[in-house]
């Protein structure tokens, strides 16, 4: 019952045995035969032909009607044979496309990668994991000569290649703003114009931009329709939603953004995220906001980087290791 070579003699022998015994073992070998013939790119109509030839060899007096009927069957299989060949072409094409996309995804990772800066007195943790190959979430850190920290977090509504292209645009636009002009409100207003000019109206980008002043511990921020983050006050041992308002990027040319601020104190934590965290789905239901905060609370005593990674791993498992949306989470711990 070992492996056998693909040829029509084998088919005839198997067929002969099956007709004599009707045993399952021959049918198992029929299955193996057909898999092997597929490996050899044999079309289904050729299997019918091999069947006809085998039958004629086994029964030289095969009734004319039977012979005739099998020719008819063969004729109906020609179209299926064509579909089978198209399938092989398509599989090759798909393979190429997939490797192209994976090259692009690697490039995107390099392009969008950001360096997590060392800021005295601020513990930073950040993680971003795509649901599919390409990431439609984005975060970025930048520091100026005074040690102030700019933090961007964004989410493209839309997935795949177009979303990746849009994110590259955001990254290079951000890079092109002069370092000295890191006012959150102004940055969002500028980006809004870039997106409005360059991107199709069907694609929206939400973004939160924050500027942390290292000396005063003041966090200034503005949001373009981005999923609200949370502020943990250590003194009150309580979470507050970071309320903002502001239209998503790219809707109208002249959108203005309101700027807010938070005075951070010792052990306070700013939690920034995308909706891939808060809209985590477990089976058919969405997770409750309180559950998210409970998970965060469980890990927030850890160093910031370890904390975000633990929170991610918790939600990854909860979703059966199948993210429905890109997941990005940032902790800024005083």
């Amino acid at each position: 019952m070992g492996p056998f070579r693909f040829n029509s003699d084998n088919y005839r022998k198997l067929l002969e045995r099956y007709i004599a015994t009707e045993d399952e073992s021959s049918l198992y070998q029929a299955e193996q035969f057909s898999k092997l013939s597929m490996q050899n790119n044999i079309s289904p109509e050729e299997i019918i032909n091999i069947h006809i030839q085998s039958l004629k060899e086994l029964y030289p007096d095969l009734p004319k009607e039977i012979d005739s009927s099998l020719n008819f069957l063969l004729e109906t299989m020609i179209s299926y044979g064509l579909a089978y060949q198209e399938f092989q072409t398509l599989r090759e094409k798909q393979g190429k496309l997939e490797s192209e996309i994976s090259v692009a995804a690697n490039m995107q990772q390099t392009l969008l990668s950001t360096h997590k800066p060392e800021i005295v007195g601020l513990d930073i943790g950040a993680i971003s994991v795509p649901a599919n190959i390409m990431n439609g979430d984005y975060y970025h850190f930048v520091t100026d000569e005074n040690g102030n920290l700019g933090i961007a977090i964004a989410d493209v509504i839309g997935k795949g290649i177009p979303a990746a292209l849009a994110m590259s645009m955001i990254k290079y636009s951000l890079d092109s703003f002069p370092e000295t002009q890191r006012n959150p409100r102004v940055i969002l207003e500028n980006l809004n114009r870039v997106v409005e000019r360059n991107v199709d109206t069907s694609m929206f980008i939400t973004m939160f931009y924050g500027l942390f002043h290292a000396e005063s511990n003041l966090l200034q921020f503005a949001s373009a329709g981005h999923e609200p983050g949370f502020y943990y006050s250590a003194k009150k041992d309580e979470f507050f939603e970071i309320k903002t308002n502001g239209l998503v990027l790219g809707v109208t040319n002249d959108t203005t953004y309101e700027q807010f601020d938070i005075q951070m104190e010792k052990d306070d934590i700013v939690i920034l995220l995308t909706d891939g965290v808060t809209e985590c789905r477990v089976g058919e239901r969405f997770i409750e906001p309180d559950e998210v905060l409970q998970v965060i609370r469980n890990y927030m005593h850890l160093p910031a980087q370890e904390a975000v990674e633990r929170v991610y791993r918790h939600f990854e498992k909860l979703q059966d290791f199948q993210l429905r949306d890109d997941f990005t989470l940032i902790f800024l711990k005083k």
Partner: protein
Amino acid sequence: MSKTQSNVQIKKEWDIVGARQMGREKAKELGFGTVDQARIATAISELARNIYLYAETGTITYEIVGDLNKIGLKIIASDDGPGISDISSAMEDGFSTSGGLGAGLPGVKRLMDNFDIESEDGKGTTITAIKWVRN
């Protein structure tokens, strides 16, 4: 109708044939047509072959399931083998687990009506699949 649960141990390649046969008989008893009988046998082949190739030993269990409205055959393939570390890859088309010869798990899913898989790294795999008799 025979008792509602029975099983076949998979230890050597020959057992694959036994598992197919048992499945085909159950299917015939339940009133499945020829094509569905062949599909069920092929699905069992695939599952038993996976056990034989990757877990060495395991069990194929057959169960008649249903209610007043429908009746079906449930196949459970379980082993204590190495488990499947990346289930989502194993469920992808073209990522065949039987050395390029198999239709793989996506094939089993297509051949049957319901499909469920549980696997833990190092702790084995349990695959449950049901086919319903068409009225």
